């Protein structure tokens, strides 16, 4: 498609069906935001289940949340917010054409995400040892409530699904580092970094809501 302001040399990344890279960048961002809407509603279903069961069994939630270790929850929140900060810094360095800064920031984000998953792993194994397993494998007698497994089923579904999204985020960022090393990104073209940044911030926002709802019920 021609550009109304006559022919100019096309940047390498520009697709033929877009007029200029600005339109392509805005289109990709809008597409990502529409996808984030589906992620919000995807987790929304779990939050709905959480709220419905909390309205039915409020005392179960209070008892059961004592089983969750608030300290490690707080550390995890801080880790994830930190990774959100470093991914924002990564985008900033991509915008300023500092490719080395982009790669280091990405590595920090990936390692913080990895720390998050390790903490989750220890939390899970600690619960498995005590017999707190999802659904019918729940054999823990510590709680008086006969429907206690409902809380932990929802807990495992929420944190499990969130964990899977963190792993996907790590995968995406490793792919970004690989492409950054090949010099694909520049201040002219950093759309994939921005898109992955948006996805990572949303994963952080979901944890920001998960943390108080699961850990801080008093």
């Amino acid at each position, binding site marked *: 498609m021609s550009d109304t302001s006559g022919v100019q040399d096309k940047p390498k990344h520009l697709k033929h069906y877009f007029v200029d890279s*600005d339109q392509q*960048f*805005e289109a990709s*961002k*809008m597409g990502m*935001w*529409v996808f*984030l*809407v589906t992620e*919000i*509603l995807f987790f*929304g*279903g779990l*939050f*709905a289940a959480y*709220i*419905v069961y909390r*309205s*039915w069994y*409020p005392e179960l939630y209070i008892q059961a949340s004592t089983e969750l270790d*608030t300290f490690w929850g*707080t550390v995890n*929140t*801080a880790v994830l*917010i*930190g990774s*959100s*900060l470093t991914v*924002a*810094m990564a985008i*900033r360095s991509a*915008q*300023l054409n500092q490719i080395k800064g982009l790669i280091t920031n990405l590595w920090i984000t990936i390692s913080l995400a990895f720390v998050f998953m390790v903490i989750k792993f220890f939390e899970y194994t600690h619960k498995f040892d005590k017999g707190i397993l999802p659904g019918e494998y729940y054999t823990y007698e510590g709680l008086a409530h006969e429907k206690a497994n409902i809380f932990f089923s929802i807990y495992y579904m929420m944190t499990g699904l969130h964990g899977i999204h963190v792993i996907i985020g790590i995968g995406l960022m490793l792919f970004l580092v690989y492409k950054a090393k090949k010099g694909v990104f520049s201040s002219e073209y950093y759309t994939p970094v921005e898109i992955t*940044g*948006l996805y990572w*911030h*949303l994963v*952080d*926002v979901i944890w*920001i*809501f998960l*943390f*108080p*709802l699961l*850990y*801080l*019920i*008093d």
Partner: protein
Amino acid sequence: MSGHHISSAKFLWGIGSALFFLTFITVAASWVHFPSPWNIVVAIGIASVKALIVVAFFMNLWWDSKFNSMLFVMSLIFFLLLIGITLLDTLFRVDPVPSF
């Protein structure tokens, strides 16, 4: 070039520290025992403030085109709709006999 806002490093660090501070606040709030409905309101309130900060400044919605913000608000509306109308049923059920 509307979508290309570049925020300064100092600004990003400021936002990051605000979020760390709010995390501390929300944990502190859980030590103070609020009466039943208020503890949820406080927890959700702080979490919403944190979420809005991340969405507005880390995700550049503040400087971005209005349509993306509208998309985000639409998803929240439909999420609240799912919960609101489902609660219309689950909270108002009448059991003919005290059930199981």
